[in-house]
């Protein structure tokens, strides 16, 4: 299998879907002539022209609303937010229109739209531009929320998102665009189903559920723990809503303990939701309280040394795994 970068995998997904279906179009700030703020949409304008690759003014509420209207009348827009931090000015469009129209029209009108863009902390972009947006959007019934960790999942899930008839919030990793990983050849039209967890690393001693940027922190921590004789089983939910806990429950029944690691704040959100479900669905199998390693409960500091402390670290993951394993 060939290797692609995360951004290339996303780009390929959009190329393939725009090629397959001429109702698909991309709209957002700097997606066309600038080739994308993070070069995800590089080459799309040259291939599909200004009719299907549309540069917008800095007006998220406006172009999110235009996209929703286009979806309501039968097109399949991809709306790129330069970052998810900027989606908050379009919040009302997303939660009041995109998420509600299908229900409020008694199923008459579908909104097949994808909102995508980089999510989470990058490096020293400070508190207003470091949001991990999953908790805001996973809260809303009517939205799918996807947060892929690997290039392969990014491609396969973005293709499924574009083909979905429901509005999808697609959270990319701002620091993951350069990550390389295996992706099936161009000839393989791989669709990864929305709402399916993936076993990322088999293990026997402790289950770790993680996604997004900390996915890589966890895999590194798992190697260190393996050297000490603790084999972690790592599961990536990939889709945060709808959430698939079957694989997690199966794993916890085997390991009897679980640590959930995520970048978003600890108060609520998918991390807390996973803990809530696992304690009910695997109660009789738990040998220790479920633990979470999260982004710390503070606005992101600008200082790099502090930012590194706020994001989940290998050390915190290792400590949590050892605590639930009752080892020193």
């Amino acid at each position, binding site marked *: 299998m060939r290797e692609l970068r995360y951004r290339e995998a996303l780009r390929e997904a959009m190329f393939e879907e725009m090629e397959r279906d001429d109702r698909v179009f991309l709209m957002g700030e700097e997606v066309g002539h600038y080739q994308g703020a993070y070069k995800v949409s590089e080459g799309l304008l040259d291939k599909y022209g200004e009719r299907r690759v549309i540069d917008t003014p800095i007006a998220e509420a406006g172009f999110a609303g235009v996209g929703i209207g286009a979806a309501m009348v039968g097109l399949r827009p991809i709306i790129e937010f330069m970052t998810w931090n900027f989606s908050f000015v379009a919040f009302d469009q997303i939660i009041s229109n995109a998420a509600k129209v299908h229900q409020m029209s008694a199923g008459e009108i579908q909104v097949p739209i994808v909102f995508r863009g980089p999510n989470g902390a990058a490096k020293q972009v400070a508190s207003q531009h470091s949001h991990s947006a999953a908790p805001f959007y996973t809260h809303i019934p009517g939205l799918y929320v996807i947060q892929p960790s690997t290039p392969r999942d990014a491609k396969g899930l973005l293709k499924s998102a574009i083909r979905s008839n429901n509005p999808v919030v697609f959270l990319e990793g701002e620091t993951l665009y350069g990550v390389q990983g295996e992706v099936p050849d161009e000839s393989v039209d791989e669709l990864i189903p929305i709402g399916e967890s993936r076993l990322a690393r088999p293990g026997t001693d402790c289950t770790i559920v993680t996604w997004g940027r900390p996915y890589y922190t966890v895999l590194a921590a798992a190697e260190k723990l393996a050297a000490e004789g603790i084999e972690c089983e790592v599961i990536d939910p990939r889709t945060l809503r709808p959430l698939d806990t079957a694989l997690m429950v199966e794993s916890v029944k085997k390991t*009897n303990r679980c640590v959930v690691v995520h970048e978003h704040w600890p108060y609520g959100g998918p991390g807390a939701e996973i803990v809530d479900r696992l304690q009910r669905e695997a*109660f*009789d*199998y*738990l*040998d*220790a309280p479920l633990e979470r390693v999260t982004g710390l409960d503070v606005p992101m500091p600008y200082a790099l040394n502090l930012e590194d402390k706020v994001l989940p670290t290998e050390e915190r993951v290792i400590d949590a795994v050892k605590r639930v394993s*009752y080892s020193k």
Partner: protein
Amino acid sequence: MAKIIGLPKLSPTMEEGTLVAWTKKEGDEVDVDDLLAEVETDKATMEFRSFDRGVLLKILVPEGATLEPDVPVAIIGKAGEDISDLLAQVAETGSEAVTETETGTAPVSAAVPVPAAVPASVPAPASVPVSASVGASVPVSAGRILSSPLVRRLARERSIDLSVVQGSGPQGRIVKRDVDSYDALSVGFAAVSGERLPPRVVKASSMRRTIARRLTESMQLIPHYYLTVDVDIAPLSDARKAMNAELEAAGRKVSLNDLIIKAAAVALRRVPEVNASWMGKEIHYHQVVDISVAVAVDEGLMTPVIRDADRKGVAQIADEVRELAGRARDKKLQPEEMTNGTFSISNLGMFGIEEFTAVINPPEGAILAVGTIRNEPVVEDSAIVPGRRMRFTMSCDHRIIDGATGAKFMAAFKRIVESPLNMLI
């Protein structure tokens, strides 16, 4: 500075305790570990020892009061100290905390010359010096067992009593590895594979300590000797069948053990010298026949008493045994339901034990150990015929029951068992 002393929780399951007797009076000097009072709990009469040094300034509850743990019972401080504030504090909260102060229950220790409630078999005579220390050195752990949900499920599946498993997690939480290492089989395998595990250390429960103390005293103080008879059990077994056929319509039935209780009770009437207690300078010949029946429970054993077994029908004995044994297993027996028997019966027949010797339950004078039914050839009128046999062994206190007396009882018992109609004489 003076302080209020609350009633300590003297056993893990103690929900209330009766303050049987104060052993200090107001104005007495009190040192750490001094005996303050005797408290009757669900399990036993326990020693309430002081954690403090000073003078017993005030006794707040009368003897006989039944109280919940932590209810103020005394004030200890320096001689002459002003305790009016503390008394006011007690008055404020005291009225609702004291659940019962029926004076009727007070003179338990006076009326009966033995400590009242005993968990296991053996109420010790008051004259026996009691040496156990439930005091400063052995803090009695209170409350529930901490364990993970997984451990609770495994304990259910493997029938493990978590109260005997030592937890290695935070706050002593029992976690999976503790249950795994508790498993006797896996311990054995671990040893084979070369892993050397240290002994699993479990704090003895108050019931366990009481059993240990009383039975040790019994064996050390009482000159035991043993008499075994082998009896034809077929007639009693047939009698049981006939009775159960009669009782079937009423939905009741009797066990062989119920009939043995009845037979022993009748035999005690015929040989009353065995129904006796050595009380130091006196011998008490009991005028009632109260049979203690040993019942295995989770942490040890209990001996509910069938009162006047000689005068009760077998079906009534059966009902009482079933009811009392059930409550013994649930630890719901009242102290008076398991004390002051005059004779004990212990049956290990259900485990296939052919015969055994039991330890006397003082101050009773004897205990009858019942073995299993054996189907075996016996010689009858010079012919070998199929037989159903059972062995009974009586342990006797030689201080009151001499060999000939004991043998006389066993002969009477054998005659009754082999010819149950004799019970009617």
